[in-house]
């Protein structure tokens, strides 16, 4: 008898299942597809009250620093579990006024470079919390694709690191000044190394290699600095918040030169705070009826017709 009950239960349960699929088939407007470039996921915006950055968005996509406010304390660098932030600072002179942040903190360190390697970032948000000036934060900008800053002469050594040009460098100083500062630092380091050499015979070898390495770096930096002068591009030591594709060590850095001579591409990739704070979502489309936003805000004809269908 179980033979027949099996057959009958098979038929009834299969028909039951077919009802579900047919139910959805005849109601194709309940779909959940989001046609990505045309329709964008509604990004939840809110103010979670981090400092004075209003409408700080919690969507964690691209890590961006408000460079004017950075005091170079390196708290974020220390907090990063994957070491994707690299900050290079030097001390300002005693009577040198670099400026203040928006929290009226006096900046004591001149930040020569602030590098964020987005190819290594794991979007954990740990770096944003320790920042005393609330200047590093994650933005909802999840589209990293860009044609700018294409660096072609990537050595095989760099290639694995420079995935799709995801290294963003911010700098307050010109490449020339940076190179000078590096040279100074190198001099200090060399002096230190020499002192150490005299002092400690045992550590002689290690110190020598270090010095040699630093010398090499400085040399490369000098070549990099020399190139803009050679082609006569005036570079004043001004604040430029330009993400530059940067792979260390800096060879004759063509993208830097190009971006310095052509301001348009810089504009494109610049991430000023204003654009972050007011993210524009071209089309907010509810995904299902459960997540539907208020009908008042929906001016799209398709959505209103959907509402009609549901209301009967």
């Amino acid at each position, binding site marked *: 008898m179980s033979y027949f009950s099996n057959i009958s239960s098979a038929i009834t349960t299969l028909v039951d299942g077919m009802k579900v*699929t047919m*139910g*959805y088939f005849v109601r194709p407007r309940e779909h959940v597809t989001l046609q990505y470039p045309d329709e964008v996921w509604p990004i939840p915006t809110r103010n979670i009250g981090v400092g004075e950055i209003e409408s700080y968005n919690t969507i964690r996509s691209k890590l961006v620093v408000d460079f004017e406010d950075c005091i170079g304390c390196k708290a974020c660098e220390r907090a990063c579990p994957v070491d994707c932030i690299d900050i290079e600072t030097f001390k300002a002179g005693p009577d040198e006024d670099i400026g203040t942040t928006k929290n009226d903190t006096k900046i004591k360190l001149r930040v020569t470079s602030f590098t964020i390697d987005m190819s290594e970032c794991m979007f954990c948000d740990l770096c944003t919390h320790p920042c005393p000036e609330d200047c590093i934060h994650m933005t909802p900008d999840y589209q990293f694709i860009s044609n700018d800053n294409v660096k072609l002469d990537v050595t095989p050594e760099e290639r694995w690191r420079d995935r799709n040009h995801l290294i963003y460098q911010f700098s307050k100083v010109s490449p020339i000044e940076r190179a000078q500062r590096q040279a100074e630092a190198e001099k200090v380091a060399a002096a230190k190394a020499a002192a150490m050499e005299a002092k400690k015979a045992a550590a002689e070898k290690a110190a020598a290699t270090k010095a040699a390495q630093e010398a090499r770096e400085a040399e490369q930096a000098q070549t990099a600095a020399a190139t803009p002068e050679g082609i006569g591009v005036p570079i004043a030591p001004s604040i430029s918040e330009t993400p530059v594709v940067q792979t260390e060590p800096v060879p004759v850095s063509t993208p830097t030169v190009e971006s310095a001579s052509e301001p348009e591409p810089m504009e494109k990739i610049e991430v000023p705070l204003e654009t972050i704070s007011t993210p524009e979502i071209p089309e907010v489309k509810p995904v299902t009826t459960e997540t539907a936003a208020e009908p008042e805000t929906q001016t799209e004809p398709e959505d209103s017709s959907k509402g009609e269908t549901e209301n009967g």
Partner: protein
Amino acid sequence: MIQLLANWILSFDILSGMGNSVAWGLSLFIVAALIFAFVAVNAIVLVYIERKVSAFMQVRLGPMRVGKFGTLQTVADALKLLQKEDIIPRSADKVLFIIGPWVILVASVVTFAAIPFSDTWLAANMNIGLFYVVSISSIVVLGIVMAGWASNNKWSLYGAMRSAAQIISYEIPVGITLIAVVAVVGSLNLQTIIQEQAGTGNLFHWIPIPLPNWFIFHSPFLFIAAFVYLIGATAEINRTPFDIPESESELVAGFMTEFSGLRWALFFLSEYANATLVAFLVSIVFLGGWQSPFADYQGTQIGFSIITLVAIMWTLFVRAKTGRLSVYPLGLSLVITISAWLFPGFAIWMASPGIFWMLMKAGSIIFMLMWFRWTFPRLRVDQLMYVSWKVILPLSLINLMGVAIWMWLTGEIQF
């Protein structure tokens, strides 16, 4: 059709110079090309429809980018497949690997020679049409075994072995089910089978509901037989829930694992050709082929009105039960009904037999197959055999006997 075409070619003054045999050969070639073109276009259209149907059933949209509503998506896919690299594994049996897909394709295309699309659109009017279709379509299994064996891949071999066992097992109940119909008609000619189903009559001979004289309404046994055949045929063409030869979650892709590019496209082509063939066979054998379901234009109007009433009631019922409103079936039936009442020409056209009805019936059967596929899980090998030998086969035998008794009861045959 071939003879008609040859006569038509010879009727032109310029071409009448060629001999009868040359014209005949030319028209043979043209018909073959037409059938192949039908199969190819059919596959492309069906892949698109299947993707859309599955998408709607799965609360998705499906292809939307290439062409309006993604209509050109499958064309683009076909072009992509054509230019893909053709990989033949080094340790494969090259000869079998190359001819395997072609065997499958040829076996599934040549069956269309016997399929009557309408009363005149028929490549070869054979008196053993049904037998021809059933026997030729089982050559597919040879190609599958060839492909699976030649791939020199364990997954492919599993797929091929499963497929062989499955297709051979299901041949038997399917054949017996078809014999039940043949017993009613007394002919294997598909055209005769369709012509037998002309006109209107009572449901199951006695119940006074006027329905077309289709064999599905001939007797309760043939009614069951139609579903038995549909299930058996689903298994024969390796579609879910019987798609164990290529079950993607177990055997990666079964016998198709090692194939790429054009060769893989051939499998796809033959898969949809087979599905279409099955749909055609069901509509020919059980649903009256190219016959219209309506006797005359008044029949069309009344019939569609009844369908609309049912649709309204169903919609209200669903609305009351789940609170959801599905307007599309209702709207479609309303539009057709209103036009049938407003334009008698439309109603007359609907009532006349022709290729439209053939395609409509086959289309709904294909939709059923898709519906099965996107709803059900897949059976296991031994359960598949269980269904074949212990459920479908006894049922088809009972059907055969029952049909004979039924015909004796209704007086169609006398001893």
